[in-house]
């Protein structure tokens, strides 16, 4: 994976895990973000901190096309500007009150967020179905070792043997944890999904064991 992440895409969540009108916490190399989808379906990645009193915006709520802070209800547009301060309904919020937002794209059922100006679109993930995400208490190196394959520049791992039906999309998190998005190749009936999910869980266990043993530091 790239070490310089400016301008590159991070796979932060699966599209299916972010229904319209909801907000979830996510993470990019710059830090935690509030990832939300407006009622009309548009995804936005906002810096996680409300500039008013520092409340985490991923605890907030989505109404219409805006994200509101749960503490005092200050609401923010997709562009990051503050739309409304409920304590002063007649006041037009000053331009200076805004949260940073990041570029977002959705491809193949995956939501990608970039810091800075990405020069290209995220990878297409053709022929892959986004199945589920899980968190491993293991670093990327341990997961690569468990999978017997290296991650590509955008975090895609295609495991070597026995698990050819799944691909993993990795994203480094806090405290040495890694977010794994499980992608399913080819036939995607219920039995294939269950098998892929179990394969991903056993791969996670293997990676966590390797991490514990200190094999992959």
């Amino acid at each position: 994976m790239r070490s310089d992440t400016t301008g590159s895409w991070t796979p932060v969540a699966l599209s299916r895990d972010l229904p319209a009108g909801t907000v979830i916490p996510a993470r990019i190399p710059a830090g935690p973000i509030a990832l939300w989808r407006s009622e009309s379906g548009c995804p936005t990645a906002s810096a996680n901190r409300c500039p008013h009193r520092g409340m985490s915006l991923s605890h907030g709520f989505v109404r219409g096309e805006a994200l509101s802070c749960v503490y005092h209800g200050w609401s923010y547009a997709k562009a990051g500007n503050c739309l409304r301060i409920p304590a002063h309904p007649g006041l037009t919020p000053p331009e200076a009150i805004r949260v940073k937002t990041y570029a977002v794209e959705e491809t193949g059922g995956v939501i990608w967020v970039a810091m800075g100006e990405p020069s290209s679109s995220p990878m297409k993930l053709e022929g892959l179905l986004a199945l589920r995400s899980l968190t491993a208490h293991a670093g990327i190196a341990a997961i690569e070792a468990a999978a017997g394959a290296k991650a590509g520049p955008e975090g895609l791992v295609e495991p070597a043997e026995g698990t050819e039906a799944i691909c993993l999309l990795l994203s480094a998190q806090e405290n040495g944890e890694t977010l794994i998005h499980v992608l399913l190749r080819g036939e995607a009936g219920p039995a294939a999904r269950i098998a892929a999910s179990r394969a991903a869980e056993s791969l996670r266990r293997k990676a966590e064991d390797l991490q514990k043993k200190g094999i992959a530091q």
Partner: protein
Amino acid sequence: MTMQAMIDEWYPVGLFSQLDQAGRTTTLMEEPIIVACDADGHAKVTSGNGRTLPVLVRYGHVWSSLGEPRKELFPIPEADQPGRRFVDVGCVRVRCSPLRAVENFLDIAHFPFVHTDILGAEPHTEVQNYKVEIREDVDEVWATQVKFYQPLAAKSASGGITTEYMYRVPAPTCSVLYKTCPPRPSEWDVITLFVQPLAEDLCDVWPWMALFDDVTSMTDLIHFQQTIFLQDRSILENQIPRLLPLDPGMEIPTRADLTSVAYRRWLKRHNYTYGAQLVAQ
């Protein structure tokens, strides 16, 4: 860490009604302490290394200090007024700066969003202008003429009322709230927030009340306040950073935050910075 200016203050360390001779181990500004009573029932506070600490009992709580308090504990005259019920609410541990806990107590604009349908409700979100001052004679922060529409202002309230509030900050981690008393319009209910700093980013909050309410059971009064403070905790444990930023560039206040602005200014002026963050990080 700068605890110098705050070390000589009095802090709540437990409920007087729950003292026993075996004692209870707790923490004051990172130092382990034991809060107990002697054979005669007098409160006794001892530090981890066996040092006897200053102690007094007031407003239902035991108060102590790691330093040498030069002042009496702040007065609450209503604590001696006949006819009031005194409610020891107990304690809520919050993983936040003790100063953030006080600042949240001074804030009314969050009521519709955090204490929904109890202390506030949309669309009644507007905060009218109110008065804030630092009273130099007593060296306290005061906010007066604070008014807010509340669906269920107190256990003794029936239906929505516009409640009037006054806030006092007489010590860096304590606040006293005077609030419209539904059954007795000529009096104020008193609700306090006494905060025990365990560390710069961890505190025990001890609310205490002196109310005119002869109807509600003690259990219901305690449950009401605990509900409110647990709702506050969900906010306080998710503010970033945990310490209270005293750097004006770090957080943007609005007119509704004038009490908080005065509180931060007063803390800074006195170097009450245990639990504060001075420069943006």
